C-alpha cells in the first residue's frame, strides 16, 4: 500500500483510539447511558404490551417490536453526541492540536465517526443482550447469525451517518448553547418520527411524509426486520437509504469540517 494511504489509515486509527480511550475512561457515563434506553424498553415496553395490543406490531409482543427502535435510538444519540463532541474539543482547545497536525481533515472525520459508531455498537449490543432478560427474542426469518449480521451492518451505517451529521452541525455552530437547541429540535423529532414506538404504515399522510424523509426510519426498519421479521419498507430500500445516508454525511461532514478553525 502507498505511504500516503497507510498514513491516512494510521490517522483514522489514532483519532479512533483517542475516542475510545476517553470512552473507556468515562465508565460512569457509559453505565448511565445504558439506563435511559433500558428504562424506555422496560417501563414503556412492558406498560404498553400489557395495556394494549398495538395493531401491526406483531401481536401482543410489543417489547419485541420496541427493542429495535431502542437500538436505533442508542445509535442515534451516541452518534450525534459523539459528532458534536467536536464542539467540546473546540471549547477546550484540543481541536487546535488536531487541526495543526499533519493529518487530513477527512481522516479526522472518519476516525471520529468510527469512534462514535463503535461506542454506539457496544452500547447497542449491551442493551440488546440485557433485553433478553425482559423477553426480547430474535424471531425473524434470517436466523440468529443472519439477524446479528444485519443488526451490526445497519448500526454501522446509521451510526457513521449520525456522527457525520453531528460533526456537520458542530462545524457550523459557534457556541455550546446551540448544542442543546439542536438536541431538542433535531434529535428528538428524528427519534420520535423513526417508527421506534409505532408502525409507520397507517399514519396520516403528513406524518408519513416526515417519516419517509427520516433516515433513521429506514435504519429502525432494517433492525426490526432482523429482530422480528416485520418491516414497512423493502430491505433493499432500507439498506440503500442507510448506505446513502452514510456516504452523504461523510462527504458533507468532511466539507464542513474543512472550514473549522
Amino acid at each position, binding site marked *: 500500500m502507498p505511504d500516503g494511504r497507510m498514513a491516512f489509515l494510521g490517522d483514522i486509527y489514532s483519532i479512533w483510539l483517542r475516542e475510545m*480511550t476517553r470512552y473507556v475512561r468515562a465508565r460512569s457515563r457509559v453505565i448511565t447511558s445504558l439506563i435511559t434506553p433500558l428504562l424506555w424498553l422496560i417501563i414503556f415496553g412492558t406498560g404498553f404490551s400489557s395495556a394494549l395490543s398495538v395493531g401491526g406490531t406483531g401481536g401482543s409482543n410489543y417489547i419485541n417490536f420496541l427493542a429495535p427502535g431502542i437500538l436505533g435510538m442508542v445509535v442515534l444519540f451516541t452518534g450525534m453526541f459523539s459528532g458534536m463532541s467536536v464542539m467540546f474539543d473546540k471549547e*477546550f482547545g484540543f481541536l487546535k*492540536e488536531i487541526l495543526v497536525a499533519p493529518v487530513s481533515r477527512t481522516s479526522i472525520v472518519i476516525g471520529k465517526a468510527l469512534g462514535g459508531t463503535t461506542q454506539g455498537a457496544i452500547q447497542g449490543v449491551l442493551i440488546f443482550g440485557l433485553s433478553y432478560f425482559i423477553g426480547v427474542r430474535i424471531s425473524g426469518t434470517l436466523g440468529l447469525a443472519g439477524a446479528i449480521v444485519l443488526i451490526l451492518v445497519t448500526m454501522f451505517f446509521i451510526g457513521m451517518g449520525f456522527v457525520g451529521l453531528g460533526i456537520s452541525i458542530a462545524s457550523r455552530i459557534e457556541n455550546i448553547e446551540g448544542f442543546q437547541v439542536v438536541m431538542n429540535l433535531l434529535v428528538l423529532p428524528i427519534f420520535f418520527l423513526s417508527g421506534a414506538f409505532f408502525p409507520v404504515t397507517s399514519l396520516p399522510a403528513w406524518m408519513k411524509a416526515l417519516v419517509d424523509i427520516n433516515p433513521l426510519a429506514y435504519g429502525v426498519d432494517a433492525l426490526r426486520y432482523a429482530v422480528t421479521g416485520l418491516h414497512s419498507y423493502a430491505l433493499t430500500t432500507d439498506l440503500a437509504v442507510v448506505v446513502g445516508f452514510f456516504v452523504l454525511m461523510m462527504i458533507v461532514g468532511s466539507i464542513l469540517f474543512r472550514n473549522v478553525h
Partner: protein
Amino acid sequence: MKAIETKDLVKRFEDVEAVKGINLEIEEGELFGLLGPNGAGKTTTISMLCTITNPTSGSASVFGHDVKKESSTVRGMIGIVFQDPSLDDNLTGKENLDFHGRLYKVPRNEIAGRINEVLELVELADKANVIVKKYSGGMKRRLEIARGLLHHPRVLFLDEPTLGLDPQTRLHIWEYIEKLNREKKITMILTTHYMDEADKLCDRIAIIDHGQIVAMDTPENLKHDVGGDVVTMTVPHGSEQLKTKLEQLEFVKSAQLVDGTLRLSVEKGETAIPIFMDVARQEGIAVPSIALHEPTLEDIFIKYTGREIRAQEAASGFAAYHGPGRR
C-alpha cells in the same frame, strides 16, 4: 536558508487589518521574540506561520516551504505551544503525548523513549500516568512544551508561553526554553507581552504594534538606542505644560506622558533630577515621586508606540480570561 521568512505578510479579517505587511527573516537556531500588546497582531502572525490561518496577501515560508502551498510539509516541521490550553483533560500526560506522536508519525519503536525524554526535560516523568485534569496550570504548560518537542520540530512556536503563570513557574519555563534553544539548536519564535521575558530570552526582538513592526533588533541594541538614563516622574493630571517645559531642556532626548507618568530620556540622570524638580516647583506642580533607571524594553516600547504595554494588558487580559467563548 532562513528558518522563517515573510514578505509583506497581511491578514485582513472582515473589516479589520490585523497584520499590515510584516517582513521577517529569522535565522536557524535563533530565539526570536514578537513583542507587543494584546491585539497587536502577534498571535495572528504566528497563526499564519503555523498554517492555522491563511495570509490575505504576501507570503511566508518555513525553511523554504510556503505555508499556504506546502502546509502539510510545514506542519510536520514545526511544533506549537498555543496561548490557550490545548490538552485533552481526560487523558493522562503520557496519552496526550502518545496521541501527538501518532499524529506526527513518530516511529512507534521510538515513541516510548521520546516520551520519557521530553517528560524528563520538563520534569513531569513522575506524573506521566496522571490524568491531565489533575495537573496544575504550570504542569499543563510544561506538558504542552514537552508535546511541542516530541516530534523533534525544527522550529518551535511559543505563543505567550508563561501567560497567567506564577513567577516561580515562569522562571522554570524560561530555563527550559533557553536550554532547548541552546542544546537542541531549535529555532524558536515566541510571542509575549512581558518585557522582561523578551529581554531575558530573545536573541532578537520585533516590536509589533497595530499589526506592524515598529522596531527590530537585539534587546541590547534596542536599549542602546534609547541610551543614557530614564527618569520617571509621577505627576498629577494636567501636567502637559510641565512636559513641554522639560522637553525644551537641551539634555532631554525625549519625553512621554503616559497615564500620569512622565518619562524622560536623558544623558545623565543624577544631574537631571534636581533640575526637573526645580522646573516642577516653578510650575507649581507637586511631584510625589521620581525615579531613575537604565532603559528597559518598556521604555523602548513606549518610545515607539507612545503607550504603556502593561496598562493595555491589564484591560484586555481581563477580557481574555472572562470573556465568552474562551477556555
